[in-house]
């Protein structure tokens, strides 16, 4: 057996500056440049499974599709039902399957962008997937991130999962029709979000009876 015995001078350090996020960030910048070129605004929706992302996107598409072009990327590929539901509204839908079921990345979104006619879309709504933290490290090229939470996640949801709010510009607190039944104060949740990030826009909604959906649409149109 050959044994290597290192002399002290045979061990040395070298600088190797290399960002592990840069590859994705570069692709995200390319996506953004492509979108900007066409005057298209991509919005990234994230949040727990069941918080109401697909329902909210469906309502937004219904509201906006007659006044501007809309396309939807669905990264929540567990079933195709979500995509089918939106496709019925007659807008382009791209279903994106992630490799590890973790999060969308800029490469996948970039491929999606090549599948549609971007110039016809004023908005691309991207339904991100996964746990609440993963997507934060992986920008996609979107102009704003919307975190969708629902009152059914309980009164301490912001305090328990603070990290996902830090990188978002808009927070939608959904299912407020259930707030009383759940004993959850929407006011207190809004306060919690503002404690974390004072300049974030918080919009309470009920996708069931339509409350607040207009406010979300107006906020997106103003971006």
């Amino acid at each position, binding site marked *: 057996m050959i044994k290597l015995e*290192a*002399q002290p001078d045979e061990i040395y*350090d070298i600088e190797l500056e290399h*960002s*592990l996020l840069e590859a994705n960030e570069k692709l995200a910048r390319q996506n953004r440049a492509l979108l900007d070129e066409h005057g298209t605004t991509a919005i990234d929706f994230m949040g727990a499974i069941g918080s109401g992302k697909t329902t909210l996107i469906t309502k937004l598409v219904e509201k906006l599709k007659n006044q501007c072009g809309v396309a939807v990327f669905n990264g929540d590929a567990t079933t195709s039902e979500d995509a089918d539901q939106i496709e019925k509204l007659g807008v382009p839908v791209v279903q994106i399957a992630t490799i590890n079921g973790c999060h969308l990345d800029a490469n996948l979104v970039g491929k999606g962008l090549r599948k549609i006619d971007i110039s016809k879309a004023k908005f691309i709504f991207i339904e991100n997937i996964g746990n609440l933290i993963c997507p934060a490290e992986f920008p996609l090229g979107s102009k704003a991130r919307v975190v969708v939470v629902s009152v059914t996640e309980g009164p301490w949801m912001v305090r328990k999962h603070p990290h996902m709010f*830090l990188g978002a510009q808009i927070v939608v607190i959904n299912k407020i029709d259930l707030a009383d039944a759940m004993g959850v104060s929407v006011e207190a949740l809004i306060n919690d979000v503002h404690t974390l990030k004072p300049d974030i826009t918080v919009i309470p909604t009920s996708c069931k009876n339509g409350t607040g959906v207009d406010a979300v649409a107006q906020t997106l149109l103003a971006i």
Partner: protein
Amino acid sequence: MHELSIASGLVEKLLEFSAHNPERTILEVRLEIGELSHIDSEQLRFCYESIAKETPLEGSILTIARVPAIVSCPHCTYRGRPDYWDEALAIAPVMTMRCPHCGKAVEAEQGHECAIKSVRLLDTHTAPSV
């Protein structure tokens, strides 16, 4: 789970380095990870060790240094450590984007990094002892 994608990128970069430097063995890899990045060091280490198995990187040490967050406030002149939220129910301290001085929104200057800084190498082409 994003630790897996980051570990894959890390291993890929290091194997590329190894392929170009066959006479050098990577003993240790030093990373800097910002306080604002949501990367779990233990998970990252686990993913790294799993992927590094049966490659020239097997047995190498991953050293992770945490980079503290620095925020600055566009509303007043504050620049420094962020404000923490004591009422949060998370295990680790939770930083906020609220200015500790004026209470308005701050911007992050430092704390998002996730990068390789340096590697420690062993030169193996010098005479081996038997």
